[in-house]
C-alpha cells in the first residue's frame, strides 16, 4: 500500500529568465538583464524584473527558474529585515550576501533539490566594489565582470577585450548594451526589453526598460535561400 509519497525535488525549470551581465565601473556596479520569462520555447512573460536591490549595498540579478528567484527574494528579505532589526550601525554588505547565497545554493544542491538559478550579486560598501556570481550547484566566484548562461559565451569575450576599471557610467552602459545586443541576436530566449541597474555608494537604481536598436539589413538576409536550393 502506498502510505508515504516520495518527497519532491526540483527536476526541471518551467519559467526561466535568460542571461544577466554585470560589470564593475568607476563608481560601482552596472548590471543588465532582459525582462523575458520563457515557458520552454515560448517567450511567454515580457515584464519580468530580474534585477533587484538588496538592502542598502547590493544588487541581485537572476537567471533560471523565476519562481525560485522569487523564493530567494523571500529569503533575502528576511535576512535584510533581521539585519536591520539589530539597529546597530552594522549592515550586511555585498560580500556577506554573496556568501550567504552561496551557502543556500550549495546546501540545496547537496539535498538534490536545487534552486534552479544562476545569480549575480554586486554592490559597493565603504568604497569597496564587489561583484560575484553563484550557480545552482554552488559554484561561486568574484570578478570584474560576470555573466550567467549564454552571457558567459557571448558577452564575456567582449568584456575581456573592452573592460577597464575606469569606465564612466556612460561607457559602462554602452558596453553592456553591446553585450545585450549580441545576446539579443544570438540567444533565442532573449527579448528586446532590457533593464539596466546600477549600484553605487549612494544606493541602487533600477532604470526603466528600453529596447535596443537592431540591424537586419544585411544582404545575406535579403535572399536567405539563394545558396540553398530546396530550403525556404
Amino acid at each position, binding site marked *: 500500500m502506498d502510505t508515504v509519497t516520495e518527497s519532491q525535488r526540483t527536476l526541471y525549470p518551467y519559467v526561466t529568465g535568460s542571461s544577466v551581465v554585470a560589470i564593475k565601473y568607476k563608481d560601482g556596479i552596472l548590471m543588465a538583464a532582459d525582462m523575458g520569462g520563457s515557458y520552454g520555447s515560448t517567450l511567454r512573460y515580457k515584464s519580468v524584473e530580474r534585477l533587484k536591490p538588496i538592502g542598502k549595498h547590493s544588487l541581485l540579478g537572476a537567471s533560471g527558474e523565476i519562481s525560485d528567484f522569487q523564493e530567494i527574494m523571500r529569503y533575502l528579505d528576511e535576512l535584510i529585515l533581521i539585519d536591520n532589526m*539589530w539597529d*546597530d*550601525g*552594522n549592515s*550586511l*554588505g555585498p*560580500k*556577506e550576501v554573496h*556568501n*550567504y547565497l552561496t*551557502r543556500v545554493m550549495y546546501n540545496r544542491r547537496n539535498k538534490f533539490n536545487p534552486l534552479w538559478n544562476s545569480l549575480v550579486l554586486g554592490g559597493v560598501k*565603504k568604497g569597496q566594489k564587489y561583484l560575484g556570481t553563484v550557480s545552482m550547484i554552488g559554484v561561486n566566484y568574484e570578478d570584474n565582470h560576470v555573466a550567467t548562461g549564454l552571457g558567459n559565451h557571448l558577452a564575456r569575450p567582449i568584456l575581456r577585450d573592452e573592460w577597464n576599471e575606469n569606465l564612466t557610467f556612460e561607457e559602462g552602459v554602452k558596453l553592456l548594451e553591446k553585450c545585450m545586443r549580441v545576446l539579443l541576436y544570438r540567444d533565442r530566449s532573449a527579448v528586446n526589453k532590457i533593464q539596466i541597474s546600477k549600484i553605487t555608494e549612494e544606493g541602487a537604481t533600477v532604470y526603466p526598460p528600453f529596447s535596443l536598436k537592431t540591424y537586419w539589413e544585411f544582404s545575406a538576409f535579403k535572399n536567405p535561400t539563394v545558396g540553398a536550393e530546396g530550403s525556404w
Partner: protein
Amino acid sequence: MFRNQYDTDVTTWSPAGRLFQVEYAMEAVKQGSAAIGLRSKTHVVLACVNKANSELSSHQKKIFKVDDHIGVAIAGLTADGRVLSRYMRSECINYNYTYESPLPVGRLVVQLADKAQVCTQRSWKRPYGVGLLVAGLDESGAHLYYNCPSGNYFEYQAFAIGSRSQAAKTYLERKFNNFTASSREDLIKDALIAARESLQGEKLTSSVCTIAVVGVGEPFHILDQETVQQLIDTFEIVREEETAPAEPEAAAEQDAATEQASGADQGGAGNQGGADQGGSPMDI
C-alpha cells in the same frame, strides 16, 4: 547582603523588586581576580591579574581569544567563563562560515547577554557566575564591552572588574579622557599601571599579569611573558609610587639593564632578582 526568604530561587522576586540570586552571581564576579580593559580609537588592551593557588600550581587562564578580531577577559567562576568563551568562538566561526566576514562585536555581545538572561528566568538554571570584558574590532571601530551575569551589557572606554578593581577604576577614571587618541604602547602602559593599582602593594611582574592586545591590522593575541616583563621594566611600574622622583628611576633603569639584582632600594633592580629568588617553580 544577608540571607532572606526571597533568595532561594532565581525566579523569585523580592518585594523590593530584586532578584537576589542574580545579585549573588554578580558577587561571584567581584570575588574573582581583577580583569581590566581599555580602548583607544584603534586598539583595545586587556590586562588580567593572575593569581596562582599555590606556588606549585599554574595560573588560571583568564583571557581567551574568541576570533582574530575579538578576545575576552573573565572574572569570577572561570569554568563558566570557559563555557561562554566556547559559545562565543562557535558563534564567530558560524557567522564567518556563512558570511565570510567577521562577526560584529556588538552583535556577539547582545547574543551573549541574551544567553545570560535566559538563566535568570528559568527555575532549573542558575545565572553564569562570570563577568566578561569583551574586546573587539569591527567596521565601526574598537569596542570594549562588559557583560554581567544579569544579562546586561555596557560599552566602556575603560573598565575593571573583580577583586580590588576599584583601585584600577580610580586610576582609569583619571586618565580615560586621553585614551581615544592613545598610541598602542601608551594604552598597554596604562593597562599595566591599572593592573599594578589593583595589586595594591604586591610586585607587578609578568608572572602575575597577563596582557592581550587587539587592534587595526593586529589580530587578537596574548603577549608572551618575556614581552610583558620587558614592558614592565621599560615603564618602571614595579612599585606603587608613581610619585617617585625622576632621578632614582633613571638610575634604576640602568641598574636593571646592566646588573643582576643586589637587593637595592630601587624597584627596577628588584625585578631581575624576582626571577631568581621569589619566582614560583612554574616560571623557571
